């Protein structure tokens, strides 16, 4: 590397840090750990990303599945579909801080990046619940389609999306009034939904039609459908690409965000589910339910790398990097 290109990289890095500081606190900071919901073990494991070892395990009853980090990453919020609870874990103390009943079959979970409010999708209750973490109370409920699973919130905190699995649709919810303002029909059985950086489009992984619906959030219309592997589950974005976990194909489908053309398919462990990109986009981490591992995938070489052994049935459905 020449001195000049090194200087440019430093300048870019500094610029990125400044940009990061303008975003919600800590959001741009490097991640050190992964908090992994191990559903069959009834626990949340803490994986050290430098050594790729599970260094702690927090008992969480009720079959923990969904997870979302608070903006400051001081709390990991976990849903327990069988326990009907939202469980808040203090990430520094690695302890359960509080837990409340939220309703029937809580699964998907997301945090409003502006207000810090926590949203939970109740799979059996067909509703989205809003929880104020300061008071630890349910503040609002809104009915959506059938079996809501994945949730996503726009960067401005104004809009919530829920993937309503049995309705083959994405619900649009206005965060301020907590009312459902629209429904967008997508492929068959959308499960995970994610909003690309910049916030213009949302991507829904359709478990039964084996594709991803691309939604323009301005017009609220599906503008494209991208074929992926078998039983797609979650979507993450890094390095100009979308990465989709294909549960039954044991792989990630990778396609370009610019033209939605396929890039490659990356073999990973059995039943890949939860997926999240690092803030710098250099890697995505994938929880593989079947093999009880968390795997790092390099987004430049597009190769799966080191694995961390975790407890039984890791799902990590949501944001889990700390």
């Amino acid at each position: 590397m020449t001195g000049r290109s090194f200087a440019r990289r430093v300048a870019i890095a500094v610029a990125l840090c400044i940009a990061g500081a303008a975003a919600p606190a800590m959001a741009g900071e490097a991640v050190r750990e992964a908090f992994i919901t191990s559903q069959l073990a009834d626990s949340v494991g803490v994986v050290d990303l430098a050594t790729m070892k599970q260094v702690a395990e927090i008992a969480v009853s009720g079959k923990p599945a969904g997870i979302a980090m608070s903006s400051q990453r001081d709390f990991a919020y976990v849903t327990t579909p069988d326990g009907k609870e939202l469980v808040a874990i203090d990430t520094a103390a690695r302890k359960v801080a509080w837990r409340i009943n939220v309703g029937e079959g809580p699964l998907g979970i997301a945090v409003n990046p502006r207000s810090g409010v926590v949203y939970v999708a109740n799979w059996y209750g067909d509703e989205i619940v809003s929880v104020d973490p300061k008071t630890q109370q349910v503040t609002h409920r809104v009915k959506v389609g059938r079996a809501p699973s994945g949730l996503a919130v726009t960067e401005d905190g104004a809009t919530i999306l829920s993937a309503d699995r049995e309705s083959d649709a994405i619900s649009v919810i206005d965060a301020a009034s907590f009312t459902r303002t629209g429904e967008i029909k997508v492929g068959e059985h959308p499960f995970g939904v994610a909003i690309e950086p910049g916030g213009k489009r949302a991507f829904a992984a359709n478990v039964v039609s084996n594709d991803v619906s691309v939604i323009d959030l301005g017009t609220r219309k599906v503008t494209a459908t991208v074929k992926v592997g078998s039983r797609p589950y979650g979507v993450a974005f890094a390095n100009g690409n979308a990465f989709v976990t294909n549960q039954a194909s044991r792989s990630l489908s990778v396609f370009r965000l610019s033209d939605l053309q396929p890039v490659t398919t990356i073999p990973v462990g059995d039943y890949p589910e939860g997926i999240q990109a690092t803030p710098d986009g250099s890697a995505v981490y994938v929880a593989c339910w079947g093999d009880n591992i968390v795997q790092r995938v390099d987004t430049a070489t597009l190769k799966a790398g080191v694995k961390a052994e975790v407890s039984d049935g890791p799902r990590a459905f949501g944001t889990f990097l700390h």
Partner: protein
Amino acid sequence: MLGPRTQKSLVTQLGETLKRIAIAALALAAVMPMLANAHGPSRKKEISTIEINAPADKVWEVVGNYRDMGWHPQIGKTEADPGEYKKEVTKRKLTFKNGAIFTDTLTRYEPENKTIAFLTNDEDLKTLPVEGYSSTISVADEGGKSKVEWKGAFYRGYMNNDPPPELSDKAAIAAVTAFQKEGLEALKAKLESGK
């Protein structure tokens, strides 16, 4: 006593009731196919293994044949799509000896790893109270003998909260455990007897 007006209103009421029942039945019928393809959020896992005193190649010849699952005592007939095996494309129909029909799709076929996997599309809840039952069967050589692993991943056969006992997580795990054990034991008996 009932005047003509009252009689008429009774008939009307009866008609309304029948109409409501019909609407309810139609609504239920509309919902049923969706229920069949849905599941609750908690997938279960059951890993069964067995050691067989036969070479891994011989064991793989049997379990790696997607066109014949007759090595499992409960399966009567296997009807698979013709042609080359295609991952996530090739399908088959399994007719159980009790008459139940399951269909599945080949999701992995790796002779080099002696691994085959398939995922059910349609199940019969009375035979196995599960949905989306995925099986990964692999054969490993252990010094001339074989170790066979059958990894099952499945949901209980009831999508809502509070399932009836026969469709609970517990019932699903018990049924899959028994089904896999029965299959592996029969496989062992078949290969060790040389038949």
